[in-house]
């Protein structure tokens, strides 16, 4: 990771620390715009900072670490979509400034699309759309079409998850007519952008998981250091030490793979690099979550302690993106194909 990105990450950590573990969504959203975090990966010629996906992931690591509430990934996906499609620069500027928010689904969805005059008619149920109630538009992305749908033409249903750090919605489109001006791309262009969005999404989920796992392990070790039982600190018990050491190795490995794979982007296998990073990091995060709760004992079972917030976010991260089991299947399919 370049020193530029290391600096970005350091400053992000300071910001996250400053606003506490989980700043309110409104507050942190405003901050995102102010700090320019929404423009990090937009090319310089489009008015962004041109620091690429590595920078976005560096920030996402810190946001995972700090249990950030703002819909950063969703916003980045929309910004990437608008930027990649070369659409109106005014919209892009507003999005990058945080003045406007277009919500994107963090799941794979089936979209029905038919031509309608110059525009299209769309039907779909989009799952896992973060903070959709704050969005002006919803991004609809499929291999056929990439479009912006006004929020007032869809039906939103809040789908509360156990992870209270994020607010997800189900977005229902029932034959919504989108004029040509709302269609960002079609056909092969739309497919190419959808692929890029999946890479952004999977890497970002990996980053959130890598950051969260590292933070939760820190919390857990600190707890074991502090808490005494049978007349000695829990951290003295070798069985617990060894479990923490195993978790540490896994956390470091997940981050190593994430950063290494980010460094390999552009070689024609971006999707696989993102999927591998996502698969390992989310597996590690849920593993750290499971172990941390056990290591905390009773206190971890109470909502007073921060432990469960990480655990629940870990579990949700694991089920965002493509279906959880599709990741190892995709990696295996690639290996089998390569050796055919």
């Amino acid at each position, binding site marked *: 990771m370049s020193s530029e990105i290391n600096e970005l990450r350091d400053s992000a950590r300071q910001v996250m620390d400053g606003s506490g573990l989980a700043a309110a969504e409104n507050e942190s959203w405003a901050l995102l715009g102010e700090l320019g975090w929404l423009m990090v990966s937009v090319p310089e010629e489009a008015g962004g900072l041109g620091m690429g996906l590595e920078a976005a992931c560096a920030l996402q690591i810190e946001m995972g670490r700090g249990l950030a509430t703002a819909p950063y990934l969703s916003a980045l996906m929309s910004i990437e979509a608008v930027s990649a499609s070369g659409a109106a620069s005014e919209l892009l500027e507003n999005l990058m400034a945080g003045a406007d928010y277009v919500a994107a689904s963090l*799941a794979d969805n089936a979209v029905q699309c038919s031509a309608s005059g110059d525009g299209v008619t769309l039907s779909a149920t989009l*799952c*896992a759309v973060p903070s959709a109630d704050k969005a002006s538009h919803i991004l609809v992305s499929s291999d056929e079409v990439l479009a912006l749908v006004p929020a007032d033409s869809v039906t939103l249903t809040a*789908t*509360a*998850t*156990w*992870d209270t750090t994020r607010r997800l919605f189900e977005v229902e489109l029932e034959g919504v007519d989108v004029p040509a001006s709302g269609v960002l791309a079609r056909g092969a262009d739309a497919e190419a952008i959808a692929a890029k969005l999946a890479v952004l999404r999977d890497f970002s989920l990996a980053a959130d998981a890598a950051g969260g796992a590292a933070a939760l392990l820190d919390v857990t070790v600190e707890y074991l250091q502090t*808490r*005494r*039982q*049978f*007349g*000695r600190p829990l951290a*003295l*018990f070798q*069985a*617990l030490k060894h479990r923490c050491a195993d978790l540490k190795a896994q956390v470091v490995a997940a981050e190593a793979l994430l950063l290494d794979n980010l460094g390999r982007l552009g070689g024609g296998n971006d999707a696989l690099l993102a999927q591998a990073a996502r698969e390992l990091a989310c597996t590690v995060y849920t593993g750290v979550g*499971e172990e941390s*709760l*056990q290591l905390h*004992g*009773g206190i*971890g*079972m*109470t*909502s*007073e302690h921060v432990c*469960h917030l990480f*655990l*629940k976010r870990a*579990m*949700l991260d694991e*089920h*965002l993106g493509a*279906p*959880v*089991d599709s990741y190892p299947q995709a990696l295996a399919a690639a290996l089998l194909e390569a050796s055919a």
Partner: protein
Amino acid sequence: MTQAQSTDTLRQEIRHWLADNVPSGWREAMTNVEQEAFAQAQRDWFRKLVDAGYATPHWPEGWHGGGRSLAEQKVIFEEVARADAPRLIMFFVSLYHAACTLFECGTQEQQDKYLPGIIEGQVWCQGFSEPNAGSDLASLKTRAERKGDRYVINGQKVWSTMAQYADRCLLLVRTDKSGPPQAGQTYLLLDMKAKGITVRPIHQITGDDEFSEVFFDDVEVPVEDRVGEEGNGWAVAQATLASERGLTLVELGQRMRYSLPMITAAMREAGREDDASLRHELGKLSARVDATCALADRYLMRRISGEEQVGDASIVKLYFAETLREFTRLGKRVAGLSGQYDRGFMRGATQETGNWMVDFMNSYNWSIAGGSNEIQRNIIAERMLGMPREPKTWKLEG
């Protein structure tokens, strides 16, 4: 009538009774309700079970419903699980912990005073665990000072089930600080309406609040409500903890086995019933679930035949806790994103709600409470395998 015939008859009886009496749709009715509604449902179900004689099979002959063999008690627990009947969570302490402690260690006066009330539906809670003690029961800090014919209690207990509904409390206190930590403990029967008691429900990560913290500020307990001698509380507490004799894990194992179809149903719902990867895990899990039931059964049988050895109970509990974790983990995997949705909390539902995140989180109740997995591993290693105990004294380097 042979023993086998007698348990078979009982099994048929209770099976029919349960078919007629288990409140239909109780799980749905207990979802997203206030705790009082749950408490009322518990009282109703308690009344029915008591009246039918199925709540007190472990009480001595002569008491209502009492005098059943351990084998018969097992049948009742198995059938309750099979019928997916509610667990008597609010009355478990009174029916088992309190009653057995009184039968084993209480005076005739104490028995006469308290046992009838239990059958009438008095709620008891347990006051053993303390904050920051975890599984280290011996580290007990709540103090009781003898003043004339009373003990005066100051301190704090935690993880007390349904304490806000409790009439009385099985309270373990420290009366002497000198000597080893297990000595100097005394066992009291506390009136929860006494002055100076504050009960504060604990907000759990599932949204449940069945456990409470209990604070004592100069609470007085008459000396006649002491069980056993002063300083002998540790031994009495062991009798309390041993009172259910493995029946709970027989029931929980069976509940888990009867819940396996929740996973196959989830596979079908996801259109993945032919997925070899899920089938592989399901098959492996099912063998483990069967083994959990076999372990619990065989443990109870050894208790019946008097062959129980130290550590046996630890193996049953550890294995159950880990298998339950795997069970809920697989359910969570199959359910995918929809398993992450918060569908509300089902009260008294243990870990077979099909709301996989809740079930998963509740599985920690069994790996943490009642002696954590780590404590069970210590017991198995030290007392079954004969490996050395943790050093008593130690000195850090440097």
